[in-house]
Each structure stands twice: as C-alpha cells, then as structure tokens.
C-alpha cells in the first residue's frame, strides 16, 4: 500500500496544490473550443471550395475561382500544420492578442483543404438525376445544391467528417507551439513546475482517448439516425 499512498501524494502535489488542475480544465475547454471552431470553419470553407470545384467543371466563368481554390489546396496540403501555425502567429496575425482565435482560424483553414475533397466526393456520389429534378422544378443550380444535393452529400460523408473532427482534436495539441494554453500545453506546464514527468502526460493522454471514444460512439448514433430515411 505504500506505493499507493506515495502515488496519491504525488497526484495531490501535481494537480491539487496551487489549484493546478484548473489550468487543465481551462486547457480542456480551449482544446474543445479550438476543435469545434476549426471544424465549423473547415466545413464552411470545404463546402465553398467543393461547390466551386464541382460547378467549375462545366462553367468557364468559374475557372479563375477554381484556380484560386487549387492554389489554396496545394499550399495547405503541402505544408505542415505547425508551420502554418507559426506563419499565422508570427507573420499574418502578428498583432492579434487572442491566440485562441488565431488557432481556430489556422486549424479551420487547414481542415477546410482536407474537408473540401471529402465534400466534393460526397457531392459527386449524389445521383445526377437529383440535380436535374431540382433544375426542372425551377431551382437555380446553387439553390438545388443547397436544398437537394448538399444535404444528401453530407449524409454520405458524415463518417468522414467525424474522422476529421477526431483528427482535428488531436492535431490541436500542437497549438502550444504558439503559446496557446490548450490541454497539452497545460499538462506540459504542470510537468515543468512540479517535476512530475509522468502523471500530467498520462492524464492528458487519457482525456484525449476518452474524448475520441466518446466522439466515435456519438457519431455512430448520429449516423444511424440520419439513415432513417433510407429504411
């Protein structure tokens, strides 16, 4: 039992003394906030890019926009997210005080590039008759996209979006690189002040693991409900 008492003692010193667990809680909130914000931004950007790319297939007027989208995709997919974070913080948003917002924008813009291709494939998987039916009723191309194609496309790609969310959640752990106090950075800080090199890190690992498992479960429930219309 001696080791157990010793361990709880260490835990007490590491997390409770000086209310250090509070840093972890704020860090946890920040991690969630960055993930959700980036995912939302990523889906919006990804949808816009995907729709432009799909429409540009048959419309010469959209070629310049399509070209811009390709540049965006190439740059984002061609550089590591940590480097993008550094560029964001120290070059683009150098005057910004709110690191969290900058992190959301950076991870969102990054995620958008990956989500775009997913959404595009989701759109392509919707039967072409759906576009025709929408157009035949008198909807414009864009409105048909909005009301008829995209809802079906999102249903097709929901598992992929869920995976993107899980990837994002873990990816945000590098936000500490630019002094954003997410949960990883918080754990690291506690580690440095208490010289407890084990417990903070393991705890953070457990938190990520629990979150990912929870998300996976939630996703499968949500997916089943969405499939209702396909019974």
């Amino acid at each position, binding site marked *: 039992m001696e080791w157990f008492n010793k361990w709880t003692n260490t835990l007490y010193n590491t997390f409770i003394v000086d209310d250090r667990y509070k840093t972890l809680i704020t860090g946890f909130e920040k991690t969630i906030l960055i993930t959700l914000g980036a995912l939302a931004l990523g889906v919006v950007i990804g949808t816009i890019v995907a729709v432009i790319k799909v429409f540009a297939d048959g419309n010469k007027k959209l070629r310049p926009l399509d070209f811009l989208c390709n540049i965006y995709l190439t740059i984002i997919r061609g550089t590591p997210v940590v480097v993008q974070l550094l560029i964001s913080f120290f070059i683009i948003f150098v005057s910004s005080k709110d690191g969290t917002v900058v992190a959301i924008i950076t991870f969102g813009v990054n995620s958008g590039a990956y989500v775009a291709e997913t959404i595009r494939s989701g759109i392509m998987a919707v039967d072409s008759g759906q576009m025709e039916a929408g*157009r*035949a009723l*008198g909807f414009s191309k864009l409105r048909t996209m909005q*009301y008829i194609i995209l809802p*079906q496309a999102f249903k097709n790609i929901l598992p992929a979006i869920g995976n993107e969310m899980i990837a994002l959640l873990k990816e945000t752990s590098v936000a500490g690189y630019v002094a954003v106090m997410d949960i990883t950075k918080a754990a690291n800080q506690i580690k440095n002040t208490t010289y407890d090199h084990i417990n903070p890190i393991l705890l953070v690992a457990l938190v990520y693991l629990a979150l990912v498992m929870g998300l996976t479960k939630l996703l499968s429930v949500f997916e089943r409900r969405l499939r209702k*219309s396909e019974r």
Partner: protein
Amino acid sequence: MNDNVIIRTEGLCKYYRGGAIRALDGVDVEIQKGEVVVVIGPSGSGKSTLLRSLNLLEIPTKGHIFFEDVDITNPKLDVNLYRRKMGMVFQHFNLFPHMTVLRNMTIAPIKLLKKTPEEAETKARELLKLVGLEDRAEAYPSQLSGGQKQRVAIVRSLCMEPDVMLFDEPTSALDPEMVGEVLDVMKNLAESGMTMAVVTHEMGFAREVATRVIFMDEGQIIEEGTPQEIFDNPQNPRTQSFLSKVL
C-alpha cells in the same frame, strides 16, 4: 402567333462530338394548349433528347425553343423562371430521398412561388388524395413502391401549377404490375385538360390518350398525326417497320 401554342421549336439540333453524333437534327415541333403529344421511336432516335431540350435540361446546339412565345434559348433569359411552368417527370422518378413525400412536394412552391407552408401543404395533400396516396404524405421515398414513387413525382410537378407536363419514359423503370397505376394518373391528368408531352414505349397509352403521335428516328421527326393515322395507317416505311416490331 397563335395564343394557344405553348411550346414551339425551330430547327432544333443537338450534336455531340462536334456533329459526329446528331441526337437532334432539325426538329420543328409545336405543342398546343390541351394537347397530349406522345413521342415514339426506337431507342437512340432522339425522343428523350427532344423532351429534355424543351426545358433546357439539354442545351441545344442550334435552333430555338419558344415557350409561350418567349425564346427560352436566349442566353440572357433566366431559364429558371420558365422551368417552373414546365413540370417534368423522369424515368427514375428522382424524388429527393432525404425529404418526406410532403416535403418533396412543398419545397419548390414554398421557396420559388413564395407560398406559405400551409398553402403548399393543403395543395399537396389535395393532389396526393387525387392519386390515392394521402396516407403516404409523411413517408420517405425509400418506403414507397416504384409506382407510388412515380405518382408522387407527378404530383410534385403539379404542385408548381405548370402549364405543360413533360414525361420522359415515365413507366420504363417500373415493374410491369405498376405501369397501369401510373398510366391511369397520366390519363386522368390528360382528361383534366393538362397539356402533355410524353416520351413512352406504351403504345396502348399512346393510342388511347394521345391527341397526336410523333414518330422520331435518327434525330428527326419522320411522321406525325393522330393515333389512328400513325398506328393504323403509317405512311413512312420507317414508321411501318418500327410499329411492326413493337405492336
């Protein structure tokens, strides 16, 4: 120009591969108010292309389409406004699978005609009753049989109160026992005075319901006339040969 003409085409052509394939090769057709025009012909004759050109789902290579005297092939025109007045029924129904039957029917009137949801719903339920599907309003398309889907697709178009209805092989994807229920709905629609253009292989329907039959082959109109003229006394050898195979 005659006020009764709803659709008129002038020298309509649709070429693929720079003219190597001529799906439509100079088609002049006129559809008057209240007519039921049935287009028949072998597969690849261009009859579906013709029908799909009428509401510009296919953009013709050459020629003009006048809808109620407006040249809708004019690229400056907002074709969406004219499509609202042309209902279209597809071979594969093309219902929106993520919406209930009712939503399928009300979304366009609500969004495009600015009807209130109540108005649109009342109208939709009335139409569903007419085709015997009033108890399926809350169902999703996947819960319907093929014949039910096509009946919903027909009333979905009718919700927009179109001036003309285009049918692109509406019974070709149906199991044989469901063909009758869809043709009955179309027959009732024709009797109610709706202007219709129908591409079909149902010669019985053509003979019974059509006011005019058009026979097409190789992108051209070969012969047209009343069902009696076409079916009982075809003049052109190609019409004769086609009919001898299908009747």
